[in-house]
Each structure stands twice: as C-alpha cells, then as structure tokens.
C-alpha cells in the first residue's frame, strides 16, 4: 500500500432523528437533496475536487441504502486502484465487537484502516452538511501554521450561536477555548464539523480517549477539549462560503428553497466544482402544453402536466393535469394526481398523492391525525416515502404522514358517511 499524505473520514452513521420519517429507513447522509443529490454527495465531491482520493465512510444506522448508493465510488471518481472510497461499518474482531459509541470511537475503531495508508493528516468530515469547500486549502493553512489540529469555522448570526459548538480564538486564529452550545457565546465562529488532524497525534488521543471510561468518545465533547487543554496548537480556519446543516425538516426544506433564490450563496451549476451524484438513466423531463412552471428546479425523467411554483422536483416525478404544487420538495418518482394541491410539503420517494387530494391543507375538514409540530415546524408538511394518499383526502398542515390514508378519513368525510 502506497502511503497517502491525507485520508478523509466521513462520519455517516447518524440517524438524523429530527428528520422524522425521512430517516426511518435510510441514514441521514442518504437523504435526497436539491433535485438530484444525496446529502453525502457534497462531502464526497468536495474530497474529489480537493484531491483527497482515499475516503472512508463510516456507516452504522440503516446503512443499506447508503452503501448501495456509494457502491464502488465511481460517480465521484473514487474508484481507484490505490485508495478510493471505502464503506466502513462497525465490525466484530477476535476480542470484541461493538457499535460506534461516538464520533471519536468510530475513528478509533478504524485506526487499522487509516494506518494502512500511513497518512500525515486525517480529515474528519460529517456526512450531513451542504457546502462546497476546498479542503486542500485548509490543509495548506494547517501545514503553514504547523498546527496539531485545524477546525473549520463559519460565522453564524449571534442569536443562533448558542445552537453550535463555538470556537473562541486569539488574533492569529488560534483556538483558545471551545464551548459546546454556550448560553452566552463569546464568539460567533461555529465549528463546521470539518477537522484536520496530524494523524500520529490524533491516534494517541484516540487511544487515550478509548481507555477513559468516563469519556463520551466524541470529538466535540472529549477529543478537542482534551487536545486544547494539553496546550496543542489548534487553528480555526475560517470558511466564508455557504454552509448549511440540514438536520431538521425545516432546515432541509430551507436549504432546498435556497436553491431557488436569486442568490443561493453558492453555485451548484459550476463546471469547476460539480457536485457528482449517482445518476439514474432517465430521459429529459417533459412539460406538457398545459404545464405551468415558475421558479423551480426540475430534473430528468419528470412529466409535468400541472402547475408548479417555487418547488424542487426530483427525478421521475409525475405531476398530473390541474395539480398545483407550491413551495414544495417532491422526492424521486413520487406521483401527484390530477387536481391535487400540494403546499409547502416534502413528499417522500415513490409516494402517491391521489386525485384532488390536498396536502398541507389549512381547511377545517382536513385530517389532523398526523399532526406533529415537533418534526414539522414552520408550517411544513411531510409525507413519508412509499405512502398512498387516496383521492380527495385533505392532509392538514404540519402533519407527518407515516401510513396510507384512505378516502373518507377526516372530519367532513365522517359526517358524510353519517348522513348517508
């Protein structure tokens, strides 16, 4: 095995429970985004463009779809003779076997994998952010500063700072203090979950951390504070592009809607930094004579007969005549029946919306059984993948529909049956 200067490890095992039904059967990094991508396409494409061609993807929660999606890494040019992409689930060895207990433990369990490449540096990434970033520039800064670790940070609005891990730095961007979700932040530089470490040093800390029974085995909670406490030089690397954590339904919806704004903050359509993805073999999309499309993102394989505005439409979606789709995100191969109305909704893969159904309805007679403001905040409605909503059913706003909904469900329909 030739040694590599740098190996990237993508933490992709998280459940992403705040994405509700979207992550019931798939890990968060495999959640669709932006019309033809999965969230993990972003860190994977960033790696390729940054010249990092040895990438480990740590999976744990519902890995089947993610593993299938990554496959041999060919869509990201990561099918290499030497290196390439590796999917790394937890495994059992002679002495013991266990799940990844935390982010640091996940890397700890793969010390053997990383050591095979004998790298100088290890880049740790998380598999659930939308951003375009050149890691090679960060590594350069890391080398130049002769740092033990470098953490990418981004300025966030002060009022949001308490939600993030905040880095307090000196004038030379050396990190002096790390605070996880501080109530009274001293800085608004939030950690992006992108770290560069000197491998030899990190390995020592990982082993020490593993031997500490009190540790949560987490980078943010344990490794970073420990390294800092020991007086290692740790650099904050400021990133000033677009970066979005899509951990909640609201932020996922917003990140999709951002694409439609005049200034989305980053160029998805950029030949020099394309986001690669596994492309389905589908023909171009067809817009019928009666179609109306305004301010939307539409991709291959769709057949649009209805009226679509401010929406992101994934591949293979069919929107029939008279259907109206507004401010929504429609995942692959969903079907919206004739005259259906879909407002501010995310519709899961292969879901079927019957004729004349209303999703995200504010009507008094709408079904409210699936009301779930914990997941569906900000007036967003969520329809699970593979679900059928029968003809004419109205689904109330802020619902998370997790099962098929038959005709006749809902208040008005109940009275109808009663009178009949």
């Amino acid at each position, binding site marked *: 095995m030739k040694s590599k200067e740098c190996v990237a490890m993508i933490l992709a095992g998280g459940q992403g429970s705040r994405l509700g039904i979207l992550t019931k059967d798939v890990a968060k990094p495999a959640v669709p985004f932006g019309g033809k991508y999965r969230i993990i396409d972003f860190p994977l494409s960033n790696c390729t463009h940054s010249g990092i061609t040895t990438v480990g993807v740590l999976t744990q929660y519902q890995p089947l779809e993610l593993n299938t999606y990554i496959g041999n890494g060919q869509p990201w040019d990561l099918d290499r003779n030497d290196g390439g992409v590796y999917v790394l689930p937890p495994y059992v060895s002679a002495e013991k076997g266990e799940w990844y207990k935390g982010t640091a433990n996940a890397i700890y369990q793969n010390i053997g994998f990383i050591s095979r490449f004998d790298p100088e540096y290890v880049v740790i990434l998380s598999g659930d952010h939308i951003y375009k970033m050149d890691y090679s520039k960060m590594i350069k800064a890391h080398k130049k500063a002769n740092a033990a670790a470098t953490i990418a940070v981004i300025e966030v609005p002060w009022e949001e700072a308490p939600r993030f891990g905040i880095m307090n730095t000196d004038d030379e961007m050396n990190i002096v203090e790390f605070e996880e979700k501080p109530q009274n932040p001293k800085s608004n530089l939030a950690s992006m979950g992108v770290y560069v470490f000197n491998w030899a040093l990190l390995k020592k800390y990982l082993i020490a951390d593993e031997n500490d029974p009190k540790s949560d085995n987490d980078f943010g909670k344990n490794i970073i504070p420990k390294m800092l406490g020991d007086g290692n030089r740790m650099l904050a690397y400021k990133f000033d592009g677009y970066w979005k954590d899509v951990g909640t339904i609201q932020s996922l919806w917003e990140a999709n809607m951002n694409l439609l704004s005049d200034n989305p903050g980053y160029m998805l*359509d950029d030949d020099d930094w394309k*986001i690669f993805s596994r492309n389905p073999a*589908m*023909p171009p999309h067809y*817009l019928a004579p009666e179609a109306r*499309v305004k301010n*939307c993102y539409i*991709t*291959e394989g769709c*057949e649009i007969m209805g009226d679509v505005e401010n929406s992101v439409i994934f591949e293979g979606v069919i929107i029939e005549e008279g259907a109206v789709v507004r401010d929504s995100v429609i995942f692959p191969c969903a079907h919206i029946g004739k005259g259906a109305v879909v407002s501010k909704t995310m519709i899961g893969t292969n879901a079927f919306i019957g004729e004349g159904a209303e999703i995200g309805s504010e009507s008094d007679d709408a079904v409210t059984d699936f009301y779930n403001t914990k997941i569906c905040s900000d007036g967003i409605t969520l329809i699970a993948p593979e679900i059928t909503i029968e003809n004419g059913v109205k689904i109330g706003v802020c619902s998370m529909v997790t099962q098929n909904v038959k005709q006749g469900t809902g208040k008005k329909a109940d009275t109808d049956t009663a009178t009949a």
Partner: protein
Amino acid sequence: MENNNTMGLIFSGNPEVNLGELMKVRSLAAVPVGGRYRIIDFMLSNMVNSGIVNVGITTGYKHRSLSDHLGSGKAWDMARKQNGLFILSPPENLDITPRTLEGIDFIDSAMSYLNRSRQEYVMLSDCNTICNIDFDEVIKFHFEKEADITVVCAEAGELTPKELSKNIMLETEEDGRVSDIQVYPKKQNSNLAYMHIFFIKKDFLIDLVGDCLAHDKHSISKDILLANVEKRRIYAYKYEGYRKTIDSIKSFYQFNLELLNSDIRHEVFGTDDSRSIHTKVKDSVPTKYGRDAEVKNSFVADGCCIEGRVENCIIFRGVKIGKNSVVKNSIIMQNSRIMDGCCVENAIFDKEVILCNGKKLVGQITYPLCIGKRTIV
C-alpha cells in the same frame, strides 16, 4: 440474462446519409439527439438491454467526438474485463481508396475483433434507426426458423418515390422466409422495409465477407443479403414498435419533435428500467426555471436555465434562454445560449451557439434553419 453467445457490431457511419452542418464536426453516430443523447445511444442501449455485452463500433472520419462520448463504455455498463465495448479503428485504406467504403469494408476492418471474440453469433446494425427493440426476440426467431440469416424489418406503409429510393424492400413467404429483396426500387411491390439490422453466425459472416471482397463486392444489402436470397434461408423478423431512421436534416428534426408525443416518448425511452436508454453522464444540475419562464410542450434536459418562453422544443443540457426570448419548434443543443429578447422559430442550434440580445432567427417548419457549432449570431 446475458446473451453469452452473441456479439454486436454497430456501424457508426453511413455513407449515404448526410446531415449537413450537424456532421461537419462529427460522425453520424455522434450527432446529438433527444435532449441528452447521441444517435449511437439507442442501438448500443438496445444491445446492452438485450444482454449483448460484447459490442464493437466501427469508425470512419471524425471519430473524436464519438470516442469521447463512449469513453470506456462505463455509462452502458460496458467497461468490463471480459467483453465490453470496443471502439474499432477506421479501415486502413479509408483515405487512399478512390471509392467510398461500404458496409463490407467496415466488417472487414473489424475482422480481428470478430475473430478474437468468443461468441458464435453476431448482431449487426446501423446506428441511425432509432427504436427500442428486444434482440432476444430476434435471436429466438432466428433459431425457431433455423435461418442462416435473420433480417429485421418493419411495415413501411405507402412510400413516396423519394422515400422508396432510400429503402430496401423485402418480399416474404408466409412463414417469414425472404423471397425477394429490392434495393432502392422505383416501384413499391412490398410493404416490408429492411431496418439495416441482421443476425448471422459469425463464421458464416466471415466466409461471406472474404468471398465478397475477393470478388470486389462491398455492399451488405446487395452482396450479402440479395446474393443469398435463393441459396440460403434468410428470414425476416417483423419489428412492430416505433422506429425512425435519421437520414436527413428533415428526419432528424421530425424525430426530435416526435418525442413531444408522450406515447412515442414512452416507447422510445422504455417505461421500465430494463429498457432504458443510457448515455454519457454529465452530472449537470437540475434545470432551473425563472419566475417569468413560460414553457409548454417541451422536452428539457438538465443543467438549463430558462427564463423566457419555450414552446414545442427539445432543449439539451446546459442551455440558457434569457428573459423575454421566445423559442418555438426548435432544437437547441448543449450549452447553447439564447440571450434576452430573442426570437427563434423552426431552428436547429448545434452545440455552443450564442444568440446575442434581441436577435431573430426564423426557419420553416418544413425546412428548419440549422446553425453550426459555436456560431455566434
């Protein structure tokens, strides 16, 4: 299941076809079509979908763009250790021969590939007939009939003298055995037109080619098929689906616009995954429609940005159409750019054409205006 005993050979050119401006920079097989495809994609996908996974493609002049498009064959799942895609080099005498090379010359140029392949049978096809055909059926038919050669044909309907002069007509007996072949007849005696696809045992093909060349004969239709009508069992398999032969700017334009018909579109591209048409992947972003976009009855590929009015069009990947522009009945190829306030009707734009603000270009529906690659108007 893979058809382990059949290989494919596709002819990337056709000396009788000229698509004018569109073929100035590329061979017939590499002409862009249908929003994100090239002509070759259809026949090559048909082969792959039928489990024919050892396919050679002959080349002639201007094969750069074809080689570039096909690459390793990965997009068709044909980058393999065993079998896969073979882009054959042009015949050695391509430049020096005083006559135009014909089908048999191209088979001859593929001789070492044919000899080296393990398969016993060959499916040979032109590239410029667009259809979604299951070759398994053709092969099954061939063995059922115990044929020596099986040709694929389709009902022609009534042909004009001009169309007739480009067609090879077949007459068959009741069981499908070909009794007569008329190459470019003046008068229509039959309703069956040959689709330039045939199936044959490899050794037999090699013998025939050797024999033809020894007698200075070069035409597949005349010297392989017609010459053997009586001596050999040639059978005609009738293909029933949609087909379109692209042999002129007019038929090219017609085929593209016919894709706006949903039935034809679903048939050509296959409604289930096993019959889908593959092409080179470009990782373009989804297409963005602006707030003032008005798009009707159009077929639009990824990576476009459309802010104007588009009607009855085929829009390829990465096309930009500016505000207040109107584009009708047109085919706009990859990365072309129509700026603001333009008017385009009945036109074909090759790749990377730029139409500056406020320009107007109008062709005739029967005679579309064709703008060459990288033209700036």
